[in-house]
């Protein structure tokens, strides 16, 4: 196999936290907001893990190790831009103001969930405070959609952009190929953010592609390609900022590969010990993105241990409270099975809905499963 010998990903901050001369373009309160978002993602992960382990939710997708990618990228977007996220991007939603409670409703699939309990957990959808487009399980399908949505911005002469995020595995999908190709030809205002976390479930990058890097794939489509250190929040922000600027000014699409590492299982159902080499985990431990950003903040005198403790307690209280509230919130009503298939309820669904109501009344509710999810 061709040895993978990538150029080094670009960084803005040294591992010690120095960012000599680099202007992050964020005010102190924005920097703290980014930091708080990182902590919220971590708290959310932790709480969901516990909920899953105690059988109260079926499934969750941890973000440990990769949090800086979503948060860094989101910080370079405006609220009027659209995000086509993967299931590992809820940090983007949190950054722009989605509250943990709204997310917890989804984790429990309850009646207050924006998706009306129809999707698996971690499949969020929001239209406020920004378009965080309904997450789909099939990998890669959202990528050409982002290009289409971007073309709508182009047609109307708006300088808004779409950011579409996906994993290293996602680069093998059909959607990746169509999307980058169309975006190249249309010079569409899209940012393709590839979160290369080293794994697609148990498939390592070396079995995913023989290319030198994921970023280099941009060449096949005549768009810009950038390789960035994914655990350096400000580097991800900077790469995204440049790509956004290019897109807004008519310069077309960019593929950003943010190189990071998944410091845990693919999901709560996965046992990474079967396949992840311990040495790799160890090597990445020192690049923990939260600690890395803390060192930067400390360097610009915005951070001390006390801040971490205060914020951690704050966000944990919020997330915990959200979980409790979501758990209490009743399940969606039976009618939600039948609505939203079409805008208007067609006759046959009206009838199927009625029959199912009558049956539930006549025979009682059917038994629910335990909700444990294998993947």
């Amino acid at each position, binding site marked *: 196999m061709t040895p993978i010998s990538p150029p080094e990903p670009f960084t803005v901050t040294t591992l010690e936290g120095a960012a000599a001369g680099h202007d992050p373009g964020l005010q102190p309160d924005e920097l703290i907001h980014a930091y708080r978002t990182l902590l919220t993602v971590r708290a959310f992960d932790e709480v969901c893990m516990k909920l899953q382990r105690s059988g109260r939710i079926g499934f969750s997708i941890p973000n440990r190790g990769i949090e800086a990618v979503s948060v860094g990228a989101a910080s370079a977007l405006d609220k009027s831009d*659209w995000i086509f996220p993967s299931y590992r991007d809820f940090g983007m939603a949190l950054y722009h103001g989605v509250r943990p409670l709204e997310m917890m409703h989804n984790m429990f699939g309850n009646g207050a*969930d*924006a*998706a*009306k309990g*129809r*999707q698996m957990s971690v*499949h969020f*959808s*929001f*239209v406020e405070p920004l378009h965080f*487009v*309904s997450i*789909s399980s*099939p990998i890669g*399908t959202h*990528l*050409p*959609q*982002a*290009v*289409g*949505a*971007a*073309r*709508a*911005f182009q*047609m*109307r002469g708006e300088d808004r952009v*779409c950011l579409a995020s996906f994993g290293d595995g996602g680069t093998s999908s*059909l*959607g990746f*190929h*169509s*999307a980058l*190709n*169309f975006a190249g*030809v249309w010079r569409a205002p899209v940012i393709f953010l590839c979160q290369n976390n080293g794994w697609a479930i148990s498939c390592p990058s070396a079995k995913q592609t023989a290319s030198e890097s994921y970023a280099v794939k941009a060449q096949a489509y005549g768009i810009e390609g950038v390789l960035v250190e994914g655990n350096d929040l400000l580097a991800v922000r900077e790469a995204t900022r440049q790509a956004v600027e290019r897109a807004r000014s008519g310069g077309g699409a960019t593929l950003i590969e943010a190189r990071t590492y998944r410091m845990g299982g693919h999901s709560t159902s996965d046992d990474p010990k079967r396949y992840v080499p311990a040495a790799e985990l160890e090597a990445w431990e020192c690049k923990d993105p939260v600690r890395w950003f803390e060192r930067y903040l400390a360097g610009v005198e915005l951070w001390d241990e006390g801040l971490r403790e205060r914020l951690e307690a704050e966000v944990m209280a919020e997330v915990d409270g959200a979980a409790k509230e979501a758990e209490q919130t009743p399940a969606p009503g039976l009618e939600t099975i039948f*609505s*939203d*298939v*079409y*805008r*208007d309820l*067609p*006759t*046959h*669904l009206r009838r199927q809905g009625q029959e199912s109501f009558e049956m539930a009344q006549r025979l009682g509710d059917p038994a629910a499963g335990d909700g444990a999810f294998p993947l």
Partner: protein
Amino acid sequence: MTTRTLIQAVNDGLRSAMRADDSVLVFGEDVGPKGGVFLATEGLTEEFGEQRCFDTPLSEDGIIGTAVGMAMNGLRPVAEIQFQDFIFPAFDQIVSEAAKLRYRSGGQYSAPMVIRTPYGGGIRGGLYHSQSGEAYFCHTPGLKVVIPSTPADAKGLLLAAIADPDPVLFLEPKALYRTVKGDVPDDDQPVSLSSLRVVRQGSDVTVFCYGAMVPVASGAAEAAAEKGISVNVIDLRTLLPLDEEGVLAEARKTGRVVTVHEAPRFCGYGAEISALIAENAIEYMEAPVRRVAGFDTPFPNTLEHHYIPDQRRVLDAIEEVYNF
């Protein structure tokens, strides 16, 4: 009213929708300067410019995937798939995405879009330029599936499809593109989806059909009339959502039913009509519900005229259920 071929009526419908609404876009392979391989989009790039009628790279997944994104974001895409046989690379985008977006987002996002594509045999196109894949899509909640059989319906149903808030697969019977002519209203008269069309009233046998099988069934009905059998011919027009009550009423009316389509019989659309009747009107049936369909084989080439149901076969089935 103007006399138009079916393909001209499609062109009229597209033009009219594009004139009425700036957000309507037409794209696909070769739909631009060439005007489409069947010329359905002829002149649209000229009239509306490259921004509103344009060629895409050779990727059906890209065509439909970008259409979904445009639809989400305020445009009204009308995407062409050159032949229905080539829609399968986009199957995932249609079945997993367009059809399910509204549902999975709790109504926050939706994909009002039209996918136009020619389907069916009769041009010696062999396995891959002749298929009738409607059943694949009719098993997909969230989609609408429409098939016109006359120029007037081609325009009227297309206008309704473009105005519809949900994704519509618009299958055009290529065998009829230039072989049927008919009056088409000059102004815009959308034909409402999920409405049956009674092609011919009859009291002995009901034939359910659509697309290119409508003239075949009508011909058979005429021939049957000469033999004293009165045949009720129903053009389903919208296959999904189907006017189930309408179908059942027409079936009960005669107590004898034949369904006709080009697609293979097994798990074809005809099976659904039979099943509806077997479930809701079996007590009215005085004969077996007969299916006339393509064989359960890939679509052949040289012998396609044996494969595609023709008047002989439909008439044979009519007589069989009549004499049962």
